[in-house]
């Protein structure tokens, strides 16, 4: 175990997998200088410019070439820099990467990881702050991961690199500096799929992922002071998501809140809420609640940007309301 940052954890994951498997490589803009967030720092020294490839500003071809390179047996780690820029490469992600295995009748696989730094961070405004994970959960053929802890960022990224299908890998920009204990073991993997019980509690189930796990943890402290014992499920992987853990938790607490930074309308919280409503309506003692952002582009000015954030206070208010029932 070492205490390292989320960013270093991601960097280690790539390094270890590149050492282990010569077919793994990374590509994107400015990777040679460590990537915009330092998440490739030093890798070029060990692996050279062929395997840590600086690309032109050509998102469509960064993505499309990775599909081709994956089809012939390499394992590209695709850096999109900001999730927003992946929108320049959607045909390649959705029509090509996600569908090639199926359309070609299983003849080929598309093992690629698409790293998409997401979320609000330092007044980045409408084109550099989006959280679009819900989109990818809707697309057959894609795995979607969104880790919160440094350990998960290492273990899930390693699993994503070993995965034979395309993985949308969402790192939250506000998490880069977050520190935590991370196993040093080269073989430390966190499997894609299972959620992590971030906090055990008896009264309300809060399902969330990515940066919002930390916000939920703060909210749980506040709630505890009010005598409310929140259980927090950190999904980690959004597709497939851990229905078993969520259902078991809701069975226990009889209350569900889903929290995410993304816009609430059409967010992935709707899928979880709908699924629980379909299957567990009989156990619920309070209505399900979703907390997501208003359907508004993200403002630059901090007080306006902050308005779109889910805060511990909002979560607490929702929990208090649910406990009225």
């Amino acid at each position, binding site marked *: 175990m070492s205490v390292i940052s989320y960013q270093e954890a991601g960097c280690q994951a790539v390094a270890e997998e590149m050492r282990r498997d010569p077919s793994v490589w990374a590509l994107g803009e400015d990777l040679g200088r460590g990537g915009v967030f330092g998440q490739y720092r030093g890798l070029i020294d060990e692996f050279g410019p062929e395997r840590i490839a600086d690309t*032109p500003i050509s998102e469509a071809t960064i993505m499309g070439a990775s599909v081709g390179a994956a089809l012939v047996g390499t394992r590209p780690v695709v850096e999109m820099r900001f999730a927003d820029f992946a929108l320049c490469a959607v045909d390649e992600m959705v029509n090509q990467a996600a569908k090639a295995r199926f359309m070609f*009748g299983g003849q080929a696989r598309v093992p690629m990881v698409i790293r998409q730094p997401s979320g609000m961070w330092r007044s980045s405004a409408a084109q550099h702050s989006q959280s679009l994970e819900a989109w990818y959960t809707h697309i057959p053929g894609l*795995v979607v991961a969104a880790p919160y802890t440094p350990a998960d960022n290492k273990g899930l990224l390693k699993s994503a690199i070993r995965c034979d299908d395309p993985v949308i890998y969402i790192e939250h920009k506000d998490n880069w500096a977050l520190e935590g204990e991370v196993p040093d073991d080269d073989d430390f993997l966190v499997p894609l799929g299972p959620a992590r019980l971030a906090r055990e509690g008896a009264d309300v189930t809060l399902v969330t992922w990515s940066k919002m796990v930390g916000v939920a943890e703060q909210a749980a402290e506040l709630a505890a002071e009010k005598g409310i014992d929140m259980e927090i499920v950190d999904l980690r992987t959004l597709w497939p998501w851990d229905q078993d853990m969520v259902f078991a938790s809701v069975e226990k607490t009889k209350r569900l809140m889903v929290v995410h930074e993304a816009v609430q309308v059409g967010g992935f919280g709707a899928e979880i809420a709908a699924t629980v409503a379909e299957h567990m309506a009989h156990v619920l003692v309070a209505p399900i609640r979703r907390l997501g952002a208003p359907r508004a582009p993200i403002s630059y000015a901090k007080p306006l940007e902050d308005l779109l954030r889910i805060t511990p206070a909002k979560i607490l208010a929702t929990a208090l309301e649910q406990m009225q029932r």
Partner: protein
Amino acid sequence: MPNDAAHPSHNIDRDRLVDLYRTMRRIRAFEEAAEKASLDGLVGGAVHLSIGQEAVAAGVCANLRRTDQITTTHRGHGHCIAKGTDPGAMMLELFGKEGGTCGGKGGSMHIADFEVGMLGANGVVAAGIPIAVGAAHGAKLMGEDKVVVCFFGDGAINRGPFMEGLNWATVFKLPVLFVCEQNGFASTTHSDAVTGGGGANARAESLGLEAYEVDGNDVAAVDGLVGDLIPRIRGGGGPMFLSARTYRLKGHTSVDPALYRDQDHAAAQWDVDPLVRAAGELRRLGLADSDLAAIDSAAAGEMARVAETAEAAETPALQHAFADIQDIGAPVWESSS
């Protein structure tokens, strides 16, 4: 920049031309059978015929090894056959039947055959370009000795990935031959009307590629020129570009009467049909009419049989609709549903 190297047909060895002719004839026969099946309602999805363009497919692929790879487009039957894909499996695919190249899940626009280096047709114009470039990039990283040929149409050169992909190939010095089939049309639109500047080759040259032009209806010329280029690309000469002037003798799809074309002009193009031209050349080289007829009827017979077989074949087992999606998180097939 090199350009338009002269490769007169009569330099070609007769046996080689016979082989090229046979390939073209098999492509033609395949597509005639596919067209009929489509018009008869036996093929569900769209079928884009490359009738008139066979010399490009045949002439290019004759110069590739099995381990070399290609990508193609919605109009890719010819490239597949020329690269070695079994027409039987292709026809099953068009019919949406078990045993199709993609198990009936892809159809005409998604034929792929990785065994022979056919990395996939594509339903999205120009989408095959970055994929081809990436396949070459992957091969280079793995130290494999491979050339990738990327086929696309004259309409595709107006999509961004065309430029991005060519630039990428130059920057990473990748072993790719880009082949632009200039058939004059992008769907119902004249390609020229929506293409600014000097066209495909000018763009390719501006991106640092050696760019060549060839009469794409002269199979010997295509073969000869590509025969020069491929070894140079294989030898590390970097990506190259080839424009093949040809003509789409049929409509955009099998059901398109293509009335938007000058009908006289279109009719006249049948006279320079690459098969007519190659047959003429073969006759000049002394091939007997009976030998030509034998090739033709063998091809027609083969493709009639594959169409018959395809018609009679079973549709895929339903559970394949849920197979090969992804290892985790795929829907579970329940026979009751």
